[in-house]
């Protein structure tokens, strides 16, 4: 459960921390103009199941991820991301069906992105931007039910201060956009639990499906999107020892659509795990549905 959930949320967390540009599941290096704001709201539904153990765990996570970005300068932008989660796990234990559930605001992530390289030509641009952020433990991490403290993956927050960083490359033309991102999230310990660090390599292609030929002015674009996320999560540590049923590597593919206008974008995609190498009895992700919008102001 932990590995798949962490992989899925890591990808979504980084995507949510990036309100600009076009990929659905992660970052781009495109500009937030100086003094400009971008708001992104993303609804996410994730199903994590296929439990090989008799517990037959089945986890569902619904989330609403809000991101606000601000262009401090032409090259430097700040982003704040706050998720709200409803996490539910159903399992069988001692011959009984059990449900454990928690809802609430998650951890706040603040991220800065600096455009270190930019090449502009007519109708195209290349940007490379490193980013660095910190996740603060603002979400509840000690929620309990009648069975006691909920397990860490069901908590809305992690309880730890974590650090994330990476770099994103964007090549955009009038016909298509290509993005690639590498990122790393170092998790720290809280209440005897330390989630494994997460490394991710992401790629996204957005291809203009409509209009086929561009007219005058600023026409809206319909993009067909195909993204890939390779996510490796290290084993969690519980009480100072590695948890053998956590961590692993997952490759997601995400087909999707985006409708892009001057002031807003609507988008939807479904993230499907095509390769999952998870440790022990870690649960695999079935799918992640993502739908949302962005506005410029």
């Amino acid at each position, binding site marked *: 459960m932990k590995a798949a959930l962490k992989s899925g949320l890591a990808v979504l967390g980084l995507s949510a921390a990036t309100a*600009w*540009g*076009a990929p659905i599941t992660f970052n781009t290096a*495109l*500009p*937030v*103009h*100086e*003094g*400009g704001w971008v708001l992104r709201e993303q609804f996410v539904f994730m199903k994590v199941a296929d439990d090989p153990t008799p517990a037959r765990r089945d986890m569902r996570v619904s989330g609403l991820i809000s991101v606000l970005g601000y*262009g401090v300068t*032409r090259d430097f932008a700040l982003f704040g991301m706050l998720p709200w989660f409803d996490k539910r796990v159903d399992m069988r234990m001692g011959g009984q069906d059990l449900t454990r559930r928690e809802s609430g605001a998650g951890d706040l992530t603040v991220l800065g992105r600096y*455009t270190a390289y*930019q090449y*502009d*030509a*007519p*109708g*195209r*641009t290349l940007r490379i931007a490193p980013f660095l952020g910190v996740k603060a433990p603002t979400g509840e991490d000690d929620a309990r039910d009648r069975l006691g403290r909920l397990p860490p993956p069901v908590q809305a927050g992690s309880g730890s201060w974590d650090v994330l960083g990476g770099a994103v490359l964007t090549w*955009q*033309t*009038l016909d298509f*956009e290509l993005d690639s991102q590498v990122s790393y999230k170092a998790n720290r310990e809280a209440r005897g639990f330390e989630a494994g660090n997460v490394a991710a390599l992401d790629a996204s292609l957005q291809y203009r499906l409509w209009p086929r030929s*561009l*007219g*005058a*002015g*600023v*026409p*809206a*674009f319909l993009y067909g999107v195909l993204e890939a996320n390779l996510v490796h999560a290290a084993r969690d540590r519980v009480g100072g020892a590695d948890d053998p049923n956590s961590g692993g590597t997952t490759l997601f593919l995400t087909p999707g659509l985006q409708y*892009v*206008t*001057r*002031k807003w*974008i609507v988008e939807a995609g479904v993230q499907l795990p095509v390769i999952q190498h998870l440790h022990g009895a870690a649960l695999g992700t079935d799918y992640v549905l993502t739908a949302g919008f*962005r506005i*410029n102001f």
Partner: protein
Amino acid sequence: MKQIARITVLAVGLMLGMASAMAAPQTYKLRVDGLSCPFCAYGIEKKLGAVSGVEHVAVDIASGTVTVTMADGAVLDEAVARKAVKDAGFSLRGLQPAAAAPQEAGQAK
């Protein structure tokens, strides 16, 4: 007599035409590099629209041009335009005065 009347009408017409041309707002055509998606175009409209004297901004994404219409008597300084384009996240390749105000979709200040 008829000839004098014709010359007078022509002269008045010419003067009216000249006055109208002199009163026409100055427009500029900016060639902007890096402009390649609708969502990014908003920033350049906003930044150029905030420049003093700018009445109207019209982006044409296919040609990578931005047409800026000024208020009567106002002029667009190239250095100011360059900074506005840069602050929007793009690069100004060139700026040329254009003849007439465009009627394209864009942002009125």
